[in-house]
């Protein structure tokens, strides 16, 4: 089955390189910033909003391939996944612990 293989093809990697550098702050999450569909994703959205930084969100629930590929791309098994300046910053716990509220 598809699960046995990495979803991260070279083409998808190139695309993700572009996506994570397209904005200073990019959040891959469950739902959207207007309507988060998971408490952990919502927590990170609220932190970013409270900091008044512009950020882009991508809903991984709408794209199963993206969801699987990102786990390999970030070397991180869960969502949300926060990228700052094109670099993986962390998930919810790290964001809560490191970004000032």
């Amino acid at each position, binding site marked *: 089955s598809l699960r046995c293989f990495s979803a991260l093809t070279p083409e998808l990697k190139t695309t993700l390189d572009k996506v994570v550098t397209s904005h200073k702050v990019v959040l891959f999450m469950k739902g959207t910033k207007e309507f988060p569909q998971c408490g952990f994703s919502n927590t990170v959205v609220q932190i970013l909003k409270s900091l008044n930084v512009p950020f882009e969100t991508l809903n991984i629930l709408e794209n199963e391939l993206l969801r699987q590929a990102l786990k390999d791309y970030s070397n991180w098994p*869960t969502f949300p996944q926060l990228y700052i300046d094109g670099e993986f910053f*962390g998930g*919810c*716990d790290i964001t809560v*612990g490191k970004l000032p509220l």
Partner: protein
Amino acid sequence: MGVTKEKVEASLTSKMNPSHLEVIDTSGGCGASFVVEIVSEQFEGKRLLERHRMVNSALADEMKEIHALSIKKALTPAQWDQQKESNNTPSAS
């Protein structure tokens, strides 16, 4: 049926050799979500992101079934002792 608390503890114990480990099943019994507090010498010299990655990969098999994993603490033994000390406020009585 998801993962048991005991399974999470066993994997972390064998792979991380923790001096302190606390696993809490926050799923209400279905084994889908856990909170972890872990103290290990293996975290020495590692950044927080790297520490969390170590925990995630120690639980790689379990993560396939775990819906949410919250790593509350990933400390070195020295940091853990320091934290315990600062929490020991003198009692008022």
